[in-house]
């Protein structure tokens, strides 16, 4: 395996690629009690239409998440139970673009890694266990439907996007998951869970060669094809609707506004650089050190829940800002005025310098977390960049980069707002 050192952040990574196409990363961490393993596929809630055996296949909303739940079933029991009984603390999640399985433990690491690699690479679906899972996921869907943060987010996604699958919940709906069968699950597993489309990242005081050897021994030996997916034609930048609202059992209105922007480079360091420029620009616009935030907070219009962020996924890019707020319409207007001001004048030089310095510090802090290290490293790998290059790229961001973001990526014409209002 190749060793790369990042002395300025005190990290190093062993990386290697198996003949079956799997990328393996080991981040050595001495002095820690725990070991952490993160095994992920480049497959998420948005990857619903893909090529299978020469034909394009459409699959129901929620299938990647459903598959994640079902993978834990093994012929001779449940992997969650096996790992837990062996002292590991396992879990999994499905996002728009990634499905990840992981555990942390403080003993029996090799056995636990064996279990992880085995169950994720061994599909076992029957009509009975699929039907049973439908009941469990129905409950999960009902639970998240009571979550206002979920409702406000998908309200916005449906307002912004016409057809891109990111507008649908990763978990799907009670109706869409009812269409899932054991056969569809096997097909999805075959296409997306082949080692060439996956990565393993381990953090902790472990033997990196042993990790590589285990992955080679346990996983399928044949490389697979990289899946071809289709998110439909590019979306126009104008939103479907400018505003949407829903009444729920909440104490204060919650809003989330979003702005579509043109897609950013999908891969490589440029993808990471755009993400960093965008995040920095949004901090300057509406972060907790921004003049706008101080004014709105001081007037009691927003609270410390207010934040802004940028996403690029499934061929689309968008910025979001929102939080709990008594007067969403006013905050929406104020943010828009601030965008105009920043587009014309650029950011204040001192503020820019400080926010960059603070962002570098926050990045250092994130390296305390094994979860964040592994998830970011693998996400970076799937997008063709090295996540440990963040400090280097962030340091190089200029005021002109940020001004260009305000001018090019934030336009009132491309915005929508989603509001959750309290029930009477």
């Amino acid at each position, binding site marked *: 395996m190749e060793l790369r050192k990042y002395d*300025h*952040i*005190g990290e190093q990574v062993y990386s290697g690629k198996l003949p079956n196409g799997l990328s393996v990363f080991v981040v050595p961490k*001495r*002095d*820690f*009690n*725990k070991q952490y393993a993160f095994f992920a596929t480049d497959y998420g809630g948005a990857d619903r239409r893909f090529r299978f055996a020469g034909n394009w296949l459409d699959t129901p909303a929620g299938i990647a998440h459903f598959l994640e739940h079902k993978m834990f079933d093994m012929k001779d029991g449940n992997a969650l*139970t096996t790992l*837990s*009984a*062996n*002292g*590991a*603390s*396992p879990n999994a999640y499905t996002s728009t673009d990634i499905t990840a399985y992981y555990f*942390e*433990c*403080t*003993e029996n690491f090799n056995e636990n890694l064996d279990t992880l690699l085995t169950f994720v690479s061994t599909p076992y679906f029957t009509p009975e266990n699929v039907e*049973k899972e439908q*009941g*469990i996921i129905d*409950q*999960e869907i*009902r*639970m998240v*439907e*009571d*979550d*206002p943060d979920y409702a406000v987010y998908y309200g916005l996604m449906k307002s912004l996007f016409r057809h891109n699958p990111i507008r649908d919940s990763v978990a799907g709906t009670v109706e869409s998951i009812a269409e899932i069968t054991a056969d569809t699950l096997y097909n999805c597993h075959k296409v997306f869970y082949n080692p060439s489309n996956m990565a393993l990242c381990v953090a902790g005081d472990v033997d990196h060669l042993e990790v590589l050897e285990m992955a080679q021994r346990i996983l399928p030996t044949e490389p697979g094809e990289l899946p071809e997916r289709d998110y439909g034609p590019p979306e126009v930048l104008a939103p479907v609707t400018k505003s949407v609202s829903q009444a*729920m*059992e*909440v*104490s*204060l209105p919650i809003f989330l506004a979003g702005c579509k922007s043109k897609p950013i480079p999908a891969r490589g360091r440029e993808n990471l650089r755009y993400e960093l420029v965008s995040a920095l620009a949004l901090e300057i616009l509406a972060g*907790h*050190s921004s*003049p706008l935030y*101080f004014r709105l*907070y*001081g007037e*009691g219009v927003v*609270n*410390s829940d207010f934040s802004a962020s940028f996403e690029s996924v499934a061929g689309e890019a968008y910025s979001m800002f929102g939080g*709990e707020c008594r007067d969403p319409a006013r905050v929406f207007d104020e943010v828009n005025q601030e965008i105009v001001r920043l587009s014309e004048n650029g950011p204040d030089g001192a503020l820019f310098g*400080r926010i960059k*310095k*603070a*962002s*570098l*510090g*926050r990045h*250092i*802090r994130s*390296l*305390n*977390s*094994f979860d964040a290290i592994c998830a970011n490293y693998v996400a970076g790998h799937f997008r063709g960049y090295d996540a440990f290059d963040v400090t280097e790229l962030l340091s190089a961001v200029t005021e002109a980069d940020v001004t260009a973001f305000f001018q090019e990526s934030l336009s009132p014409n491309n915005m929508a707002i989603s509001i959750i209002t309290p*029930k009477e």
Partner: protein
Amino acid sequence: MHTAYSSQISPGVALRCVKTDKFKTGCLTINLITGLNYETAALSALLPRVLRRGSTSLPSMERIAEALDDLYGARVEPIVRKKGELQCIGFYADFPDDRFIPVGDSVLPDVAALIGDMLLSPDLSGGLLRTDYVESERKNLIDDIRAGINDKRGYSVDRLLEEMCAGEAFGVSRLGSETEAEKITPETLTAHYRHILDTARVEVFYCGPAEPEFVETALTPVLRRLPPRGDAPVPKTEVILKPAPDSPRRFTEVLDVQQGKLTLGFRLGNAMEHPDYPALMVLNAIYGGNVTSKLFLNVREKLSLCYYASSMLEKHKGIMIVASGVEFSKFDEALNEILAQLQNVKDGDISDWELTSAKRAITTAIKSAMDRPAGLEDLYFDSAIAAVAYSPDQLFAGVEAVTRDKIVEMAAGIETDSIYFLTGKEVQHGA
């Protein structure tokens, strides 16, 4: 791995340091420990938020933000913790370690001074905490108290405890009540501030790579500015061994929700006379604290009665709670099964596999918490205020020593106190 030091700066003021090189940041907390009670809970919860708005040296949020950004994105956040019947308020700070910032800079002394000023030199107006800050943060506090309802899972647990422990300090929520928060004025808050500053026990915690002497040097000037106090012992939590009524009390609340919540509260009984925390943790893990637990494997996995069903231990108070998410139509069935699984624990129907898995889960959870600065802080802080103090090694040894007989003996005294249902508008529950 790490070394813990403890030093008494003055009566009632202690500094604890955990020296470790493994993190990229240093972490510093300062805690004022008071008894939880209905009248003062909202005042105490509000205090660090108001102090966070401005000190004499940095009199506004803007100035504080500038200073923290310049300290490489250091964070200083108000903390309000409820531990048994204690309310612990103060600040949590973390900041990049000197190894990862330009040579010659050292952030800890500046952060310590900044927190010290926040705590001890607030921006006053006419001798009172500033009206605009008090008003604005009081409104935010009330919003936060009301926002409890947004997360139905947490809300159900809070409501259960409020009903079950009505009349006990433990029934008071961490942030206090909306009614009491409404009454707060700059005068009452300033008086409360002076009182807490004069009397509360103070616990300061640092974890990171700095030498304890360096930490003490950085903090002593700050802590010496505290008014002198007596020993300021930690107030006691009233542990009630048995439920007051003969049969469990039931509470039902209707909200417009898609999924029901069923939440149960148990009193731990005689096990709390001389609490064996490690054994209680193992008991909880066997029953519902873990994915190898009876609740998870039976109520959720085998019978699919709940989307989630887990138990939590309030070890300082002697209460165990079960929280579950249930379809409205399955309330009764889920309740019966949750209680049946507790009966299995009492009957000693615990396999070697269950016992070993539970022990492993707890050991792993503690060890991995020690791999996070905030986890390490909470572990040491918890021990500092517990009725029976313990070190991590004592916890591990205690967990290892737990036997099935010990679990059965402790479980025998557990009684159901209260059952809380959160149900939807469409369905009326028959219970």
